[in-house]
């Protein structure tokens, strides 16, 4: 049986039981009821006390054996990415890519009113611009300038037709109105 004396022998079963109990205490597992004497309860209280707001034990999530991106490599990668983005942006701005794209996008909008909004988000994404106004007013075509050959000379008024096509039709009407008034003698 267990003895408190240091010179007395102890049996192997007791050693194993104590070792298992210490392992359970060390891993903060609950001890079996037969081991819950006052000394073990005091040790448990000490453990609860020192564990209070202490850093958690356990393996950190980072595995150091896996290659980690170091600070230098991160800086180089960020620099290359910034250079590519900056070059692309300058080229787009210098070549007028974004600005040219808008009239090209607006033309089919005026000619084919059947699909006015389908290509719009894609074109905006390609041009890397976000217009504040979804349907900006297009400047009026100067009088005498022929309309685009592919454009319909007399566009059908659609319910969802924008003022853009109305503006494109206005010079012709103004010219007819002036000619009619000159002919009637009512022009001043």
């Amino acid at each position, binding site marked *: 049986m267990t003895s408190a004396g240091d010179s007395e022998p102890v049996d192997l079963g007791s050693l194993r039981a104590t070792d298992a109990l210490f392992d359970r205490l060390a891993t903060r597992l609950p001890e079996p009821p037969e081991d819950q004497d006052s000394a073990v309860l005091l040790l448990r209280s000490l453990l609860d006390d*020192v564990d209070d707001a202490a850093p958690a034990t356990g393996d950190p999530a980072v595995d150091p054996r896996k290659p980690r991106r170091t600070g230098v490599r991160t800086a180089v990668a960020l620099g290359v990415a910034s250079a590519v983005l900056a070059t692309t942006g300058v080229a787009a701005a210098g070549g007028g890519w974004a600005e040219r794209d808008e009239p090209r996008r607006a033309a089919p909008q005026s000619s084919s009113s059947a699909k006015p909004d389908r290509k719009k988000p894609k074109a905006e994404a390609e041009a890397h611009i976000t217009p504040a106004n979804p349907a900006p007013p297009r400047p009026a075509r100067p009088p005498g300038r022929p309309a685009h050959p592919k454009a319909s000379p007399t566009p059908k008024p659609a319910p969802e037709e924008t003022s853009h096509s109305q503006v494109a039709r206005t010079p012709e009407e103004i010219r007819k109105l002036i000619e009619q008034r000159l002919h009637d003698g009512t022009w001043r």
Partner: protein
Amino acid sequence: MLYVTEAAIVGTEAVHVVVPRPSRSEESEPDLRELATLAVQGDAGATEVLIGRVRPMVVRYCRARLGRVSGQYHAADDVAQEVCIAVLSALPRYRDMGRPFASFVFGIAAHKIADALRSAIRTAVPTEDLPDGPDERPGPEETAIRYLEAEQARDLLYRLPDQQRELVLLRVVAGLSAEETGNVLGMTAGAVRVAQHRALARLRAMAVAMEESGR
């Protein structure tokens, strides 16, 4: 000085066979050693993980040894921080001589704690800001009881012989295996198992005596 020897075991079976299963620390120890090897070679990630694993053990060990000052563990936590800094500083000079890395760490910790006990630092205790939300922590009565029981446990531990006290703290509070504890204290694993058994028997006897005297 050893208080027990393996020759005190009944029968002829050696204590070395009293290992029913590999303990948690035995399983994780090669990782710690591997981390230490990488950290010595200058791997910053390995050093970070190594300190991350060592620090919780050191904090608990320092808290158990030094206790609370003005109801707080700030002094013990400061010593634990000094231990971690000292480990980091000494890491380039660390050489794996076949002993667990924990023995290197707790060797430093023992010196730092001895320094702290000698100087008996009493520093200003910082207080937390006034909490805005409900406090989920235990109430004053429960906290007071836990403090008292923890102090009683420390009192009992300090009545043990030095080596048995260190052994219990390293095994139970810091969570070292018998082999690691033996390396720290200069004992075999079998001697550690016998000594911890005797230490627990003493603690039980003292706890019973304390209960009887309290009645």
